[in-house]
């Protein structure tokens, strides 16, 4: 019994059959279709097609044995649009689930690969090609389960790093003995060649009612009846049609106990990408007391250190209030930044540990005073990034261009020198504002720059 308690609800309540599912809306080239029917027909047509082609190929092979090389016929294969289909939609609407549920209904076996396991062409090939081309020894003896290939998170596997993967997938599609279903979150340009060859089914987010139905069923099965409908509504809304996220939130809140302030819990359980970084920074500042602890925290996370130390920069003053502690913390952080700059410049990546220790340990250990009950501190997103580059907003850009028509000086001079002067000139007198904007022919948006 304990086992089921510890399983994530998402796994526990993963639909076993299509009937249990909240089926998301789907579109094929702009026309609405029923997703389950679409997939079912896709698999069925593929299976009949492949049977025909295998029989034809058998004949071709027999024929080929009798003639010389030049006259040999090519073996046939199923056209790509009939052998593979791509499901594209936001996370958590049930792309993977529907494939598993369908396979279960049709008594098929799913061979899955995803970005978490396979990231390179080699890995992909070694995993899939054998299954695709050959048939198991047992297949000749007993009728085994039919197979279905699921390439999950295809946009994640075939990033920029591995261009060879797209041809590998295309190759796979052409030679497959089993239907292939691919899932992806968003449109990727480097997958363009793939998109052109196969059918794409666009899946939209689930509606609120559909999610509510599923969630209510789960709550009933878990025998939870004290959940505030308002909170439930809030969670569903926050997840924007992401059923998986909703269920995860629910479980987190339920197991965290419903006595505490739910909205804060919901905040803490924020399921977007920043969640990990949020908790990481809290841990670093609030829990870590020694260098080793700080190290452990940064080691176990897979947050990109390029960002992490910027987050620390942004949130340092939230946690460290005493000026002398702040000074030590910043001393270490700035040293870390300097070290990192040198590492990048000279490509001494082996020196990276110093950078790690400086920005995590060095900053954390600067904090000597830990209040007993610190309470909830809001983590800020690092909004400000000074890259040292001179970049203008759209309004500034058009403003500068208008000025340069009449007065040809550099952009820097206009922004740093002329604009402040014009602001001063026009701030006290409406007459000048009109004169200046008329003469430079400024429109309303550009005028706003003057009055800001």
């Amino acid at each position, binding site marked *: 019994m304990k086992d089921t308690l510890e399983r994530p609800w998402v796994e526990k309540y993963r639909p076993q059959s299509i009937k249990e599912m909240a089926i998301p809306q789907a579109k094929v080239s702009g026309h609405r279709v029923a997703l389950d029917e679409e997939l079912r027909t896709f698999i069925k047509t593929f299976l009949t097609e492949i049977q025909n082609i295998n029989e034809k190929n058998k004949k071709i092979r027999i024929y080929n044995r009798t003639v010389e090389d030049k006259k040999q016929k090519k073996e046939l294969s199923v056209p790509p649009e009939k052998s593979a289909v791509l499901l594209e939609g936001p996370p958590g609407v049930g792309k993977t689930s529907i494939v598993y549920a369908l396979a279960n209904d049709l008594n098929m076996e799913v061979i899955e690969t995803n970005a978490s396991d396979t990231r390179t062409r080699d890995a992909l090939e070694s995993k899939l090609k054998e299954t695709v081309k050959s048939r198991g020894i047992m297949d000749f003896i007993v009728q085994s389960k039919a197979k279905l290939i699921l390439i999950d998170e295809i946009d994640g596997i075939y990033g920029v790093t591995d261009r060879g993967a797209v041809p590998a997938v295309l190759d796979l599609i052409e030679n497959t003995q089993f239907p292939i279903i691919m899932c992806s979150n968003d449109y990727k340009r480097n997958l363009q060649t793939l998109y052109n060859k196969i059918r794409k089914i666009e899946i939209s987010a689930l509606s609120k009612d559909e999610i509510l139905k599923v969630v209510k069923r789960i709550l009933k099965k878990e025998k939870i009846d004290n959940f505030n409908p308002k909170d439930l509504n809030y969670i569903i809304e926050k997840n924007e049609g992401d059923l998986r996220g909703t269920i995860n939130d629910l479980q987190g809140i339920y197991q965290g106990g419903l006595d505490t302030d739910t909205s804060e819990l919901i905040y803490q359980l924020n399921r977007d990408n920043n969640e990990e970084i949020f908790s990481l920074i809290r841990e670093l500042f609030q829990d870590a007391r020694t260098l080793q602890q700080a190290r452990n925290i940064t080691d176990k996370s897979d947050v990109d250190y390029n960002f992490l*130390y*910027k987050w620390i*920069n942004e949130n*340092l*003053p939230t946690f460290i209030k005493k*000026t*002398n502690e*702040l*000074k030590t*913390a*910043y*001393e270490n*952080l*700035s*040293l870390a*930044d*300097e070290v*990192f*700059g*040198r590492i*990048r*410049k000279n490509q001494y990546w082996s020196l990276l540990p110093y950078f790690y220790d400086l920005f995590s340990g060095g900053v954390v250990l600067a904090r000597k005073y830990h209040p007993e009950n610190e309470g909830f501190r809001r983590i800020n997103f690092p909004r*400000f*990034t*000074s890259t*040292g*580059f*001179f*970049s*203008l907003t759209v309004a500034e850009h058009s403003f500068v261009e208008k000025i340069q028509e*009449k*007065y*040809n*000086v*550099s*952009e*820097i001079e206009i*922004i*740093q020198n002329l604009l*402040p*002067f*014009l*602001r*001063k*000139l026009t701030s*006290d*007198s409406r007459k*000048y504002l009109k*004169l*200046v904007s008329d*003469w430079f022919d400024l429109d309303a948006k550009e005028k706003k720059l003057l009055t800001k």
Partner: protein
Amino acid sequence: MSDNIPVWRIKYLPHSLNEVCGRTELIQRLSDIIKERNFPHLLFIGPEGSGKTTIATLFSEEFLGKYFKSNFQKVYADMPLNSEELKQARSDAYISTSKIGSLAGKKVTTPAFIQVKIKPFIELKALGDVPFKILIVKNFEALDSNQQAFRRLMEIYGKNCRMILITTKASAIIDPIISRCQIFLISPPKFEDFKGEITKIVDQEDVEIEENNIKLLYKITNGKIAEAIDLLQLSSMSGKKIDNTVLYQNLMNSQTNLVRNLLLICLKGDFLKARELSRKIQSNYKYSSQEVFKLMLKEMLKLPLSRYAREKIINLIADADFRAVDGLDTDIQISNLLAKLCDFAEIL
């Protein structure tokens, strides 16, 4: 036409070399060059706001005459390239295999700035009845090591195009460049000339200013005529008569004011507020971290602090500036400086 121009500094911009305020000797030399129809590469050295660019532009305009537009270009060495230009530089750097020569299929490693902004202009011959084109490179010192690339360019394409390099820091220019140029030192106008220019404007704009206040104006602007005209215009708004109090009231420009505030907030020990303000200054005026440090240094000297405190603060600023050179995130370095200043204020 010129009556309608609301901004005095544009209204009184000189339209020919003769109109340039003061510096008669220099103008004479340049006029001689125009008559001769030939000159070597030039290097203009002078403090900020002394009119180097204006003089260089007017000079080119008069030299090229009616062919000015097609044969003249002004580039800013300190303007970072935008992404499009960088992309272009990258594609230009690759020499197609279809071309003939030993470089086919290889990449040229010319600095992107020169590849995009300089080469396309100087490679082509001058159009019309002029001996060569004129290219003005402003803030030449900002090119740093890329100056080396100019050495050959100046020789190879010297026939097509003469350059006028403009800089504020003679020490930052490498020797080979200096030896290839005729040097012009451009100083701010002398007081007499400055006074003449100001009185001319004063007469036309119907305001009054006494001579000792003109002296004051000269002193506080360091002879930068554009800045003086700006100040004059601001002062004129509060009345026909301009005296020293009005001048001082308008003197504080907004940036230096903000930087001074920043320092004061730091010395009160409010880190969060200080950081917010410093970010605001950077984004509003597009300052790089180095410029912020410089401004802070300048303003710090104006604050009433003890000698010890000043020494200490200069040290802190210098340290932060050095780190920013090597570091990647300048915001961290500025925050570091602010935190240290806050801490230092507590000791004081």
